[in-house]
């Protein structure tokens, strides 16, 4: 350990309270807002002219909106992994990462819900789901579990925030006036009494226990949107586990990326340490191996049999038009990150950050490969349709909306970090006391 002044409660608070955007922060936010505005304009065009502005047609009836939705649902699972699984397993080192994971989960699940509305042909009829909803439909299951997950995630973000809100309310000089009012609105009831702390602790424990099955549900049900159909590439009993393992992987990768960026942007080297990158690096390797295992099951077992219906789909992935993208996703999403992170030197912040980016980028394209190629290989040959129905490449509107939604999710995280401490202050102080006491 370097010889640094010991971390007192005051220093911790000063280090961790939210800071104003610097020049970089302003540029970053500006770029994200620009993406969102372009995306919103593209959606306006889609609302005006219909889904015809997309490249989706009767055969490829689901495109990057749906793969983006799957990506968002996947990444949001990390909230339950880092917060709930680690908390219940009494893993102490994950404390500084819990809030990062939880805000990623919340923003991702919010945009998952939005992007699925974007994909609807008649978004104004959304209320039909509540008037005429059929519980037999997997879409209804998704509506139910995603809403539940959103609320549990919000509470799991909010409850541990209460002690920090008390600190923020006290230190008025740190924040602008309007923010102070906002803090009071959210957390003035919190006095930090013993009873309150006891209740809060219990509530968080209950939430941690409940969020794990709900998290499994959201992604299993999302996988069932595909697995409940007959189509080659989707008709798989492996799908639930395959999706969940992939979700934990991309979520963990996203946390590594976020850790690195927050650490750099807010100079948090003493809180998010090299130890965290080392541990998270190991976890990513484990999860990537797990996902690889399910990929082997998902692709090589059907390929061994080469059933007639599967053959065209699989050969298109392995050696056909989708082959470059397929192997790109396998290598960047799994193999290369495993290779980087297996080595101790690869688990230092910068290489781990790069591995994290590879995981996330690979995962996005992987979701695309799960959704679209299958639709290009229907059971009956594609007949009596215009030529452009037999291919799919997203239009600029689809790209703009997809990128806009990704930017929107990042924007939520960015604003959250501006308003609230991204690393729990009170918990860090408590743990510091414990270590000193030891």
């Amino acid at each position, binding site marked *: 350990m370097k010889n640094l002044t010991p971390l007192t409660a005051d220093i911790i608070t000063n280090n961790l309270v939210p800071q104003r955007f610097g020049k970089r922060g302003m540029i970053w936010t500006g770029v994200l807002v620009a993406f969102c505005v372009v995306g919103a304009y593209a959606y306006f065009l889609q609302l005006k002219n219909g889904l015809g502005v997309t490249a989706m047609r009767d055969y490829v009836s689901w495109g990057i909106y749906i793969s983006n939705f799957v990506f968002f649902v996947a990444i949001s699972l990390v909230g339950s992994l880092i917060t709930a699984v680690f908390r219940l397993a009494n893993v102490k080192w994950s404390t500084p990462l819990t809030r990062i994971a939880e805000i990623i989960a919340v923003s991702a699940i919010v945009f998952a819900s939005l992007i699925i509305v974007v994909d609807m042909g008649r978004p104004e009829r959304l209320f039909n789901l509540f008037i005429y909803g059929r519980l037999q439909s997997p879409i209804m299951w998704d509506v139910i579990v995603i809403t539940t997950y959103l609320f549990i995630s919000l509470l799991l973000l909010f409850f541990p925030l209460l002690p920090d809100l008390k600190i923020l309310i006290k230190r008025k000089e740190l924040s602008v006036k309007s923010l102070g009012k906002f803090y009071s609105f959210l957390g003035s009831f919190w006095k930090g009494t013993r009873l309150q702390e006891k209740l809060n602790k219990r509530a968080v424990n209950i939430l941690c226990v409940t969020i794990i099955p709900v998290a499994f549900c959201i992604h299993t049900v999302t996988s069932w949107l595909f697995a409940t159909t007959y189509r080659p590439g989707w008709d798989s009993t492996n799908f639930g586990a395959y999706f969940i393992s992939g979700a934990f992987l991309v979520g963990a990768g996203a946390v590594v990326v976020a850790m690195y960026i927050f650490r750099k942007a807010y100079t948090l080297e003493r809180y998010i340490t090299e130890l965290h990158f080392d541990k998270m690096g190991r976890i990513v390797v484990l999860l990537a191996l797990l996902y690889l295992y399910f990929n082997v099951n998902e692709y090589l077992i059907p390929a061994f049999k080469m059933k007639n219906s599967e053959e*065209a789909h699989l050969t298109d992935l392995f050696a056909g038009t989708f082959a470059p993208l397929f192997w790109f996703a396998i290598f960047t999403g799994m193999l290369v990150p495993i290779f980087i992170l297996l080595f101790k030197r690869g688990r230092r912040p910068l290489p781990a950050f790069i591995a994290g980016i590879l995981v996330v980028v690979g995962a996005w394209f992987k979701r695309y490969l799960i959704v679209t190629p299958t639709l290009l290989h229907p059971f009956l*040959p594609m007949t009596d349709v215009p030529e452009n129905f037999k291919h799919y490449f997203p239009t600029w509107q689809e790209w703009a909306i997809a990128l806009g939604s990704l930017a929107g999710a990042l924007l939520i995280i960015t604003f959250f970090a501006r308003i609230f401490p991204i690393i729990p202050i009170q918990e860090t102080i408590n743990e510091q006391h414990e270590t000193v006491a030891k």
Partner: protein
Amino acid sequence: MKNNDTSRRDFLAAALLAGVAAGCSSNNPFAPGDNAIKASGEMVKLLSVDGEVIEVDKAFLKPIPDMPTVTNSEERIGIAGKKFVMVIDLARCKNVGACKAACNHAHHLNPGQNWIKIHAMEEAEHTAPYWEPTTCMHCDEPPCVKVCPVDATFKREDGIVLIDSNRCIGCRFCMAACPYSTRVFNWNEPVLEKEIAEKPYSCETSMPQKIGTVSKCDFCPDMARKGELPHCVSACPNGVFFFGDMNEDSVTNGAETFRFSELVKDKAGYRLMEDLGTKPRVYYLPPVNRNFPFESGLEKDTTEKK
């Protein structure tokens, strides 16, 4: 609601009058304008709504262009006592495309949309190629109905699977679920004549098509209510399509009528993708003893080549 009531009353009256003279059933059957018409002296016996037999001069009868629409809840139940079924004889098909053209015309489908598709099929190398027209299979275990989150696509008691475009949210799960790729989506605002576009939507006519919703072959239940055959059946010059009622055990292509059970038994009828368990209501007769060589239909082939 008021509109529905009147249309229902009209419908009942029309049904009683065998669809010929709805206007004659009330106490005062002749509207003032009718005075201009001269009685021909030839009388026709009709049954009134009250069950009385009345006599009306033939000159006062007015043809009704279309049956009044049935209510949405009636459309969801179907035609009582019927179990519609279709038989497609592959030995007779040479990819003329008249079925498709008639269907597209009757349902005012936009360019690029086809509810009927005619595939050039060849099961394997060294096996015979043949033309296979596909409609909606109106499955008894419809995968599309199973996944619909809002009951917009539904299975009726008469076996027909229909779509309520006023309820469809456009999620396209049914399109992914259908193994026969039968469903068509309105990606853009359908281009329709004003007269069609302004009609209220009916699940039985599937018209007018609406943007952002799914459509597909509907077995023309509006024609069945009129006692007529679906457009594809009557348009086919080679009598490929047979339509009928399983309860009556008869199917017809207009010119020939068969016992459904015997036809399927004698000609070894089968259904598509039986292994999926969807239980289609469309039966195929294998392409043996063909009326035309396969090559005669190649000119119009649009099937994707592998």
